């Protein structure tokens, strides 16, 4: 790794000169860093859109009774909040990280297919527009839930067609992005950068990309069958015509469970870069982390029906899916153990990226535990479609994936922008997010245990107090994210100049071999890794 700084001199001339300017720099970009930046801003924009929908949901649920929105609009909000956050915010955020970091971390000049990379990104805005335009179709948005179950989805209004098309486009974008990532990692590593020397973030994305290639076509198939059921006289999911609505659930969750790991595994990768850097120790059990990640990915294909215990299945199938699901705790436990062992006897400091990683570690583990609770069939039969499930997956998606994304953004922002963020404000952002997140979602466990169903705009009086608390937390959490936007903009416009390696424990190529900010073109001559 010490062939190092010689390469940085090559880049000076690239920093100016032939870099295109104006809007066309972005529209026609084939540069992995520019495309990564666009992915990240797109995902933040969608995070705000999905966040506003969450605020509408929590405003309506602040008190029992119907005060603010109509029930069908409420259903539309829960649907598009889920779709936009999963497909528009979290997935593109991690693809943004992949674009920015994978070429730099493996010593490649760019992604393998730069033009396809451009198309992968530019498919996202039309898909987002379709999801938003769906709100304005006759009858309003499709209140079918993000899972788009039949028969609701086959009976919904024209908004459903826009939603289906949006899912198709997002799937195409994801598949192209994945092909790009797989090819880049397998073919463009610098000399000496063997697979087992790659930073763990690259490994997690390699595995995630395979998951995406495997399951996005399954989702596309499910929504295409929904489309043909709606318009072309097929009866895949229509019992009256000999079809089966439960078939949809099986197909959807064969995509849906790996999808959970598509979101979580890159988050593991980010945290696996941040925790060693602030522990000033190498990652404990690097190889076992790689294998545990691969194991989780394989197991994720074998557990899908734990999402549908109540849909009707033989007791043998319930037992199989219960056992298989519980066993995912083993490789996940290996990962949590390794992160803790990395910190053990390390020289820890607690800058904002580390704080978010620790928040991830605590709260993702809690979300994993509630997942284990839900994997137990007789328990799930009680808790299915209650707020316990809502609390569980928000611990995984928000405190897991989103906190990890925040950790990554604070960690790499100096490398991306050349400037440091304000550490005090960053810490404020962390503590406000951590506290308001728990105020919002911890109480929802108890609402679920007490029997409050999800996806309803009104509820029985005994749930009033905890819903009020949850709504207050949600508004606090939402407002805290405006602080994040302010921190990022302030960093870009007037942050202090960052050194090449602001984190002394960071050891991957983008820190050791490249100046700050990372030049527009890097590693035109591959570094030699020893």
């Amino acid at each position: 790794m010490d062939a190092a700084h010689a390469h940085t001199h090559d880049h000076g001339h690239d920093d100016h000169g032939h870099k295109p300017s104006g809007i066309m720099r972005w529209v026609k970009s084939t540069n992995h860093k520019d495309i990564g930046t666009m992915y990240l801003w797109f995902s933040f924009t969608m995070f705000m859109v999905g966040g506003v929908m969450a605020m509408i949901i929590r405003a309506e649920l602040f008190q029992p009774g119907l005060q603010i929105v109509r029930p069908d609009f409420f259903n539309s909000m829960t649907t598009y909040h889920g779709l936009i956050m999963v497909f528009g915010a979290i997935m593109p955020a991690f693809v943004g990280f992949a674009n920015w970091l994978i070429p730099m971390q493996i010593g490649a000049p760019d992604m393998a297919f730069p033009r396809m990379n451009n198309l992968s990104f530019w498919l996202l805005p039309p898909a987002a527009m379709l999801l938003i335009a769906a709100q304005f179709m006759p009858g309003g948005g499709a209140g079918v839930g993000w899972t788009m179950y039949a028969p609701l989805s086959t009976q919904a209004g024209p908004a459903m067609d826009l939603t289906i098309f949006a899912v198709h486009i997002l799937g195409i974008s994801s598949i192209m992005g994945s092909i790009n990532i797989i090819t880049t990692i397998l073919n463009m590593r610098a000399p000496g950068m063997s697979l087992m020397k790659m930073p763990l973030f690259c490994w997690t994305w390699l595995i995630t990309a395979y998951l995406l290639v495997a399951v996005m076509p399954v989702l596309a198939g499910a929504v295409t069958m929904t489309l043909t059921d709606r318009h072309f006289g097929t009866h895949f999911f229509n019992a009256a015509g000999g079809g089966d609505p439960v078939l949809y659930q099986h197909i959807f969750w064969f995509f849906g469970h790996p999808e959970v790991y598509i979101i979580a595994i890159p988050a593991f990768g980010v945290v696996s870069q941040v925790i060693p850097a602030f522990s000033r120790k190498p990652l404990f059990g690097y190889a076992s982390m790689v294998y545990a990640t691969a194991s989780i990915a394989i197991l994720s294909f074998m557990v899908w029906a734990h999402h549908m215990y109540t849909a009707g299945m033989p007791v043998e199938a319930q037992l199989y899916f219960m056992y298989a699901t519980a066993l995912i705790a083993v490789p996940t436990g290996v990962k949590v153990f390794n992160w803790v062992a990395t910190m053990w006897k390390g020289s820890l400091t607690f800058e904002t990226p580390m704080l978010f990683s620790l928040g991830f570690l605590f709260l993702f583990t809690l979300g994993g535990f509630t997942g284990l609770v839900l994997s137990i069939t007789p328990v799930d039969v009680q808790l299915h479609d209650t707020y316990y499930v809502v609390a569980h997956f928000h611990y995984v998606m928000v405190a897991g994936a989103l906190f990890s994304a925040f950790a990554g953004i604070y960690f790499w922002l100096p490398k991306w922008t050349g400037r440091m963020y304000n550490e005090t404000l960053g810490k404020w952002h962390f503590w406000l997010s951590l506290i308001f997140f728990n105020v919002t979602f911890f109480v929802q466990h108890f609402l679920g245990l007490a029997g409050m169903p999800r996806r309803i705009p009104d509820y029985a009086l005994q749930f009033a107090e905890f819903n009020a608390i949850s709504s207050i937390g949600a508004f606090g959490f939402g407002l805290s994210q405006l602080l994040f936007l302010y921190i990022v903009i302030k960093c870009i416009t007037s942050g202090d100049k960052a050194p090449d390696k602001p984190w002394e424990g960071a050891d991957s190529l983008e820190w050791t071999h490249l100046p700050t900010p990372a030049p527009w073109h890097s590693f035109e001559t591959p570094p030699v890794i020893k």
Partner: protein
Amino acid sequence: MMDAVVNEKPPKATLLQVVRMLFWAFFGVRKRVEHDKIEVTPVQVVIFGIVAGAVFVGTLVTVVILVTR
């Protein structure tokens, strides 16, 4: 039996060695001794992954059959 081989490419591993190493990998824990001694090709990993997945499902189905009989 491997002690004689130093400073050379690891010898071709036996099937048992590959399976043993990849079993630990599948479990999520690495045994250092196993890894440093043998080299595994990507094809072996993929084949093992598919077989191990099938064995995993098969084992659980067997357990299910036993407990529901």
